């Protein structure tokens, strides 16, 4: 079976202007959303308590809220969790007069009084203190930034030996720009889909950074090879040839990863779903950014390359 015919020649770099404009617009929108609306922070980062409840019989959100009213938690966010009809709910408490460590106990009593003590189950409690939340937010942000920069440095060093430090740096910068794009697109998608930002999302972003750079590495590797083989072509043509030659690999690899992610997304349960969602978006974006962003960025330095 062949997905991409051999000898396919799509002039990808021709679309670079459209791609750059499109991506810039998308990224600016995401950045604007980030700064003006802010991401929907989960308890990991915002601090607070979440309690996951499972009821045996059909229960509605107003019912739960009413029961929580008796311990002054009527204002908590209550939402469906997991599959429909499973009667699982997530209660999120921001601040309360009750001592946080005793919160789940209080909630157990209040819900027990309304629904019966054996008619429901507290399946999960997560409490994160405000200081820890701030600390995690800080460390999460930095780890994503650090790994992105690290990928750039790796590629720089990796290709410096073949092309000289200057051109290696161009590859590195190209990769970093592509990665920033992927992270921003994923963040934007998470915000649109109303997922909360928590530790698993950071894990997903770091994985995207590590995985998405693979395509860039493979294409750059091919560019390096073709530069040696094909002497008379322009850099643009060599980049296009390289992208085309590796295209089926790029699509296949991401394709198999997307297959397992789809399985995780659909079957892995509600806890893992945001993680799988982020990876689905990020990996897909990774293919696009490698082809349309990373390579054209290298082209930007075409001049300096020729002078070499």
């Amino acid at each position, binding site marked *: 079976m062949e997905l991409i015919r051999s000898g396919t020649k799509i002039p990808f770099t021709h679309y670079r202007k459209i791609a750059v404009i499109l991506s810039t617009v998308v990224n600016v929108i995401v950045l604007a959303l980030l700064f003006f609306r802010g991401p929907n922070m989960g308890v990991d980062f915002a601090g607070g308590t979440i309690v996951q409840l499972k009821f045996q019989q059909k229960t509605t959100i107003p019912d739960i809220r009413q029961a929580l009213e008796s311990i002054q938690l009527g204002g908590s966010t209550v939402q469906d969790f997991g599959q429909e009809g499973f009667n699982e709910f997530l209660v999120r408490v921001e601040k309360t007069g009750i001592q946080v460590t005793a919160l789940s106990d209080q909630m157990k009593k209040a819900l027990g009084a309304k629904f019966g003590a054996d008619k429901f189950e507290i399946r*999960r409690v997560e409490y994160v203190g405000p200081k820890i939340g701030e600390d995690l937010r800080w460390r999460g942000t930095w780890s994503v930034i650090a790994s992105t920069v690290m990928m750039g440095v790796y590629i720089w060093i990796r290709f410096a030996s073949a092309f000289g430090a200057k051109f290696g740096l161009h590859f590195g910068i190209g990769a970093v720009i592509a990665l920033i794009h992927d992270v921003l697109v994923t963040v934007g998608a998470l915000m649109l889909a109303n997922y909360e930002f928590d*530790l*698993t999302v950071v894990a997903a972003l770091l994985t995207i950074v590590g995985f998405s750079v693979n395509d860039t590495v493979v294409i750059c590797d091919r560019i390096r090879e073709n530069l040696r083989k094909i002497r008379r072509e322009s850099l643009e043509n060599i980049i296009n040839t390289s992208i085309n030659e590796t295209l*089926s*690999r790029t699509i296949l690899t991401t394709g*198999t990863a997307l297959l397992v992610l789809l399985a995780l997304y659909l079957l892995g349960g509600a806890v893992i779903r945001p993680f799988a969602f982020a990876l689905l978006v990020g990996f897909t974006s990774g293919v696009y950014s490698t082809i349309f962003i990373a390579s054209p960025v290298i082209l930007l330095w075409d001049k300096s390359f020729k002078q070499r």
Partner: protein
Amino acid sequence: MRRGVLSRVIIFSALALLSLLFLAPNFLGKKDSSGTVEMPGWWPSFLPSDAIHLGLDLQGGSHLVLEVKLDKAVENHMERLKNELTNSFREKGISGVSVERVDATQLQIKAAAASVERVRSILKADFANLSEVKTPQTSAAGTDFYMTLNREETRALRDYIVDQSLETIRNRIDQFGVSEPIIQRQGINTILVQLPGIQDPQRAKDIIGKTALLEFKLVDDNVNPEEAVKNGPPPGRQVLFGQVGKGAAGASPAKVPYVLEARTLMTGEYIQDAKVRPGQQLQGPYVELILNDQGARLFEQITAANVKRRMAIVLDNNVYSAPVIQERIGGGRASITGSFDIKEARDLSIVLRAGALPAPVEIVEERTVGPSLGRDSITQGLTSFAVGGALVVLFMIAYYKGAGLVADVALVFNVLFMAAILAGFQAVLTLPGIAGIVLTIGMAVDANVLINERIREEIRAGRSVRSAIEAGYQNALPAILDSNVTTFLSGVILFQFGTGPIKGFAVTLCVGILTTVVTAVYLTRVYYDYRIGARRLERISI
């Protein structure tokens, strides 16, 4: 060539066998109630006998991060130093000197002009652990010294307090009875506690978090408690509350104020043992304290000196009882009565036996997962593993036929090795960890895709099958290594950053990369080398 193939077949077979040995306890062993794995009798004892450890999110349990309130402990320490200084000056007969605590870390020593030199020499000789905050302020009346603990001393004190807290918490958890708890110091002032499979997290939290500072203080019956509450207690006195009755469900129990002398006569540090005793008639159970020799002597002195007065037994600033001392009490036994049930009495005896925390602790992070959610997560994780794996396997066969099958066999070995490494190094498997394994399956075939695409290219370029395979592996290798190194790097960063479950993901991701390179590149190569060596290879299914 053939010999090379044979030795590699032997190496990979041995690795596979070793992996199966490491995984055997997961299938053969039986888990007993405490979570340890019991292997059947015929299993030799030198072979691995430990099953893969499940994270708290899969087996249920509590993950707690406690912050030790060091500032409070340092403040207490300064208060003690203040008393020491005062006593020291008094013993040496120096008059006209007073010691005050200015803030949490600073003492102010006011010395009259006549005694300045002696105060200075005592500070220098006996209190070398104190250093000056600023130069002494001299006026006509005398000199004011501003002292604080010096840096090394503060650091040592903080270290001591956190270590001591950790020990105390460990003692309490041991007595509470949790199998395989993890209690670790984390950073400067936090302690990580993991309690797998715990049934009643609230009770565990109560036991761990209680400061359990037991104090004996005298009641001042000359002051009306109600007035002291209203107008504030007179100097040297304090108002603490005791509870009467549990109160009806929902209603908060009545609080009774006591006026106490602020001075603590004795603390719980002399407790040797604490036992729950059944109460008589209508009374609930009580906790009997057995003091050590030193404590017994002290207790005897105190009771002898205060016959007919009331002595309050105060735990964490709550008055439990305030009985009248009828006579001098020898033998070192005291009891704490109060209206508690047998469970509360048992918990109280645990914290008293284990000793007080040197500083208050606060739970700053809690993640508790019930056992049923853990079971669901395992099922969901395994389902997505099976479905995702099957999809990839089928896809590879559909796309690459024979070569796809080879890649699939490598994938099976990959998962086997990965699981064995996780078991062998006793890594903890979490839900994100399972996701990491699933993801590895999806990403592992990347190496085979790179190789196979390359082989196809080389064949199209007119090479013989044999040299195409040769060139395919050779040319694909740099890209494979590069792409795995980058993913590995972000896995390492993730491990540094993450907590608990996330760390589990980072571990499986990194382990998966290692096994992927070994299986997808080197294991598949064995097959092709065998084919090449066996007969002239003219066609290849790819």
